[in-house]
């Protein structure tokens, strides 16, 4: 895999699928994903009649780890490979499988996700986007936010309200495999704090989609949405694999700092800097080791479910702190940004730090996640 890593394209590649912001990046990544699929690195556990290889899921796990170690570019069609695809594979009709699965693997059909709404960030069950049945069609009105690559996507997994009068709010929701390139669907790019694009807000204005886009039954959308969230965990849960996020390692920061000076001496020789770096390294190692310890039952007796429920919280917060420190330790060069030819590593760390908030906010803010750990692991009251 390391040998097949593509050459540096000469422009900044996205660290995650949430950062794809230009046609140039898109073309590169689409080509890369096609190569991955052709070489058999994607969809190993999916049936061969739909583009997969019908192998055991463990092979996909191994391939994924290899890609991570080699730090190759991401397999960018993440919503397709990791969310929509597994769901279609598991509960889709024969027709749905034939229509969608192969395009997901080859990267030809880009997918996006339409769950969050502007007024209901962490509270999916309150989604208000309406879908009204009209003959052979549904008419969609409302808006979805944080739809990654919404402007490039061909399909969206869409959670919409078909019955506003359902007794439980969850029972009013339905799930659609919805086309993006139809009149009335308007994905408007959102500029991120980094200055780049990558998300859209998708507006639906009397958009008409075929009734056949409904997946499963009307009013059972919540269950399907929850099922997709479980696939997020990776290959073992049925995802088609590929690297969804390039991990920035502690080692990368040390490498960046090598040779830099502060107060006239090497920054890596400054005792105060060294103490801070060791604190970061210890946290980095501790979380990594924790991921392995989680699999050893006897070493998890004191606080059950603590490691699985807190690991994301900790990685995302650690990443934010590490990147913030990396920017601070750059000296005057730390004040330059990506267009500057003198910016250290092309402004990589500045961008990475700002980008890190996507993880501390997205998928439930850290504050919400801390509540979950407090209540489910420590048993503290709501």
């Amino acid at each position, binding site marked *: 895999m390391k040998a097949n890593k593509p050459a540096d394209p000469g422009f900044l590649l996205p660290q995650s699928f949430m950062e794809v912001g230009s046609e140039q990046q898109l073309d590169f990544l689409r080509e890369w994903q096609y190569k991955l699929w052709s070489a058999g690195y994607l969809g190993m556990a999916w049936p061969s009649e739909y583009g997969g290889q019908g192998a055991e899921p463990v092979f996909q796990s191994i391939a994924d780890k290899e890609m991570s170690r080699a730090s190759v570019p991401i397999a960018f069609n993440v919503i397709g490979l990791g969310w929509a695809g597994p769901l279609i594979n598991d509960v889709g009709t024969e027709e749905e499988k034939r229509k969608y699965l192969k395009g997901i693997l080859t990267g030809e059909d880009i997918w996006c996700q339409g769950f969050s709404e502007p007024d209901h960030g962490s509270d999916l069950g309150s989604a208000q986007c309406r879908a009204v049945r009209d003959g052979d069609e549904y008419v969609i009105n409302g808006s979805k936010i944080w739809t990654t690559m919404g402007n490039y996507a061909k399909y969206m997994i869409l959670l919409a309200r078909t019955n506003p009068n359902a007794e439980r709010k969850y029972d009013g929701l339905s799930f659609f495999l919805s086309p993006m390139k139809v009149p009335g669907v308007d994905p408007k790019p959102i500029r991120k*704090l980094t200055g780049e694009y990558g998300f859209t807000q998708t507006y639906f204005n009397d958009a008409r989609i075929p009734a056949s886009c409904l997946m499963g039954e009307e009013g059972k959308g919540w269950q399907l949405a929850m099922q997709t969230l479980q696939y997020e965990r990776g290959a073992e849960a049925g995802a088609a694999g590929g690297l969804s996020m390039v991990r920035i390692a502690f080692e990368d920061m040390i490498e960046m700092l090598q040779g830099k000076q502060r107060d006239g001496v090497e920054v890596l020789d400054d005792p105060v800097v060294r103490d801070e770096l060791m604190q970061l390294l210890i946290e980095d190692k501790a979380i990594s080791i924790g991921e392995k310890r989680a699999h050893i039952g006897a070493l998890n007796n004191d606080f059950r479910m603590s490691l699985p429920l807190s690991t994301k919280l900790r990685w995302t917060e650690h990443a934010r702190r590490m990147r913030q420190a990396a920017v601070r330790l750059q000296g005057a060069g730390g004040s330059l940004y990506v267009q500057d030819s003198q910016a250290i590593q092309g402004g990589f760390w500045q961008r990475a730090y700002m980008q890190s908030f996507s993880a501390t906010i997205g998928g439930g803010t850290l504050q919400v996640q801390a509540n979950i750990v407090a209540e489910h692991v420590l048993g503290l009251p709501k």
Partner: protein
Amino acid sequence: MDFGKTQISFSEEQAMLLDAAQGLCADLSPIDKVRSLLEDDTGYDEAAWQQMVEMGWTGLALPESVGGSDFGLGALVPLFECMGKRLLTTPLMSTVLAAECLRRTGDPAAHTSLEQIAAGAKATVAFVEADDWGSQGVTTRIEDGKLQGSKRHVADAADAAILVIPAMREGVKVLAIVRGDQIDAACRTKHDVLDAPRRAQSITLDIAEADITVIASNVDRALEETQLIGALLVAAESTGAAVSCLNVTVDYLKTRKQFGKLIGSYQALKHPSVDILCAIESSKSLIYQAATELHAGALSRDARIACHMAKSKASETLVFAGDRAVQFHGGMGFTYECDAQLYLRRGLWAQQAFGDPMHHRKRLAQLILDDE
């Protein structure tokens, strides 16, 4: 052992100046104006600059002999705090620091430049050549009748009529006063500064010695002291920015609901907001105490202690406030449209400018613990 002063003074005149500055900055720099200038080439509004000149701000700390109002350096602190609050970014800081640097040499050859600055000429000092604010090393030199070398991070260089360039001449550090028109466009590279309203360049110098004014008196001291004063002005500007940053955040916490409650009622957001408030109050106390200790002459030990403290605290405060502002705005905070990012970027720039917090604490420790 002496740990620095705690007294603080603020005159009626200073209060009036603060009041006037607050009004003018609010008028000159509403947030949509700030945004409209972000990707502008110049980065500020010339008309705003002229108004500031008319208010006498370029000569506020200069003696009457060069046309200044001799109001004292301390007067600049509330001024930059106000500008920071509105993200009003002009060449004023570069200009007053260039004046301060020239004045501190005590060299009569600086007189003309000081008059020009008091009258509104833009100016700047090229403090660093590399990325290390803690190094005083200079490789730019005057040799064989030529000033040659290169400088990075030269704030507001594009429009500066007067550039003050530290250089070595016969093994001694001097200041070369260069006119803006003596540096070709080809010798200038615009920086992409993380703090989007801010403008800076790296420049390459190749100018005949005959065409420049050279100042050789007290150069090391003037540069070193000016850098410390620069640190304080950035601290003041950062403190103002942190105030606005907290206000923007608190406003959002009072209006945004999640799970049926205003998010500002959650202690997870409430208590860190109080932490930010307390950090701002610390920064304010420290910048005003430093302002009290600043005088026209050589910086006293107490003044140095105060400047180091102010910069260390104010820099950390704004980064903290900006970082939490983005986080507490949730998805909205992740957008370019949300103002939280403007303050965070300002903080990332400001923490480096004139030395980061660790650098200032290192110098502070020398003054406090080693100086008997």
